[in-house]
């Protein structure tokens, strides 16, 4: 097994080969991880929401209220205005979902689901759907399409500008998926590569491998801390950009 294969094995999704009447079901490591995260989030948050006025209950409830305040006052309201308030549950879920998916990769035997382009594309598709829904809800089909034409554009430029703006919006949504995927993938690739240094050097000489152990582990620890930061950062960026794009179709220029 060469290095590329080892890396691919640790990063790529693995199909569990579940079929139903000959139809292949998408039960893979990443999809199971996501479902597990969903169940944990659902049970955990439902439990916290129903906690009584005990000390622990107040602490957890206050923590969740602070989280909701952060999403509402730091992300949704500044970018979408008061119209965005009804989408607050979506953004609260999105941030936690992306964050937990990224952090899951740091738990042994679990994988970073957001290092899968299909998963990030699905999340970007949901964000794209939200943007479309916001545009149609607040401006109607015609108004939404008109929003793609900047005010003051000369009539003869409209046929050129309109497709450009539409493509620009589609690209923005695609970039959401690619940015999250690339960040999560690269971080995990670096982590695996650092671990592989020990074995690659060890294959050359056992003493050299032992010598590489401490520096490699130090770098591994540093990168893991960085991955923690990146997980929070990417969850924030994904949520923030979704709210900005949705806000841009609600408050058109």
């Amino acid at each position, binding site marked *: 097994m060469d290095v*590329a294969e080892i*890396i*691919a094995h640790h*990063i*790529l*999704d693995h199909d569990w080969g579940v079929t139903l009447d000959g139809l*292949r*079901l*998408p039960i*893979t490591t*990443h*999809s199971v991880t*996501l*479902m597990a995260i*969903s169940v944990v*989030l*659902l049970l955990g*948050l*439902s439990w*916290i*929401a*129903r906690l009584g006025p005990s000390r622990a209950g107040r602490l957890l*409830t206050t923590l*969740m*209220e602070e989280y*909701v*305040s952060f999403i509402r006052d730091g992300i949704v309201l500044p970018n979408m205005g008061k119209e965005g308030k009804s989408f*607050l*549950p*979506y953004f*609260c*879920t*999105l941030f936690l*979902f992306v964050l937990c998916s990224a952090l899951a990769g740091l738990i042994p035997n679990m994988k970073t689901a957001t290092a*899968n*382009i*299909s*998963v990030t*594309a*699905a*999340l970007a*598709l*949901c964000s794209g759907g939200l943007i479309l829904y916001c545009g149609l809800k607040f401006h109607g089909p015609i108004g939404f399409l008109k929003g793609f034409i900047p005010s003051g554009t000369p009539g003869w430029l409209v046929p050129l500008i309109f497709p450009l703006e539409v493509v620009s919006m589609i690209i923005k949504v695609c970039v959401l998926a690619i940015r999250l995927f690339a960040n999560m*993938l690269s971080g995990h690739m670096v982590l695996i590569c650092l671990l592989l240094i020990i074995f690659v050097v060890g294959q050359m000489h056992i003493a050299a491998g032992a010598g590489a152990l401490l520096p490699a582990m130090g770098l591994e620890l540093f990168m893991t801390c960085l991955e923690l930061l990146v997980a929070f950062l990417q969850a924030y960026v994904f949520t923030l950009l979704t709210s900005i794009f949705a806000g841009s179709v609600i408050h058109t220029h």
Partner: protein
Amino acid sequence: MEDLLKPDYGVLVLTVCNFLLLVYLLKKFAWNLIIGGLEKREQQIADDKKQAQDARAAAETLKQELDAKLAQISEEASKRMAEAVKIGEKQKEQILSAAKEQSDRLLAQAKAQIEAEKNKALADVRGEIARTAVLAASKVVQQQMSEASAKSVVDRVLEEIKAK
């Protein structure tokens, strides 16, 4: 490694369904309760803040009213004090004037009384002198005059004294 960029549409659809279902369920069972609690708490804080601001405004108004009243009372007190001082001055002058008048009157009365006492004393002295003179004269004359002549002399002397 090229599999990294190959999308798995099954996973994609499953993730979309998973995520949207999670949004729906969390909204129903968690977010609505948490957001409701948060908004209730914020509303309570806003109400308390408004109440505190109203109370502060009321206190400010009350303070202004009290300050105005205090200023009014102070002005009134100064005015009354000035009036009292004025009345006191007037009463002082009246008392002094009355006292002076009374002392003048008492002085005049005393002078009159002294004059009367003096006159009375003079009269008494005169009487005493007369008696003494008569006594002396009678002793001188007793040896030379009869009782009848002596009596006439004394009567004459008394008449003279009365005439004076």
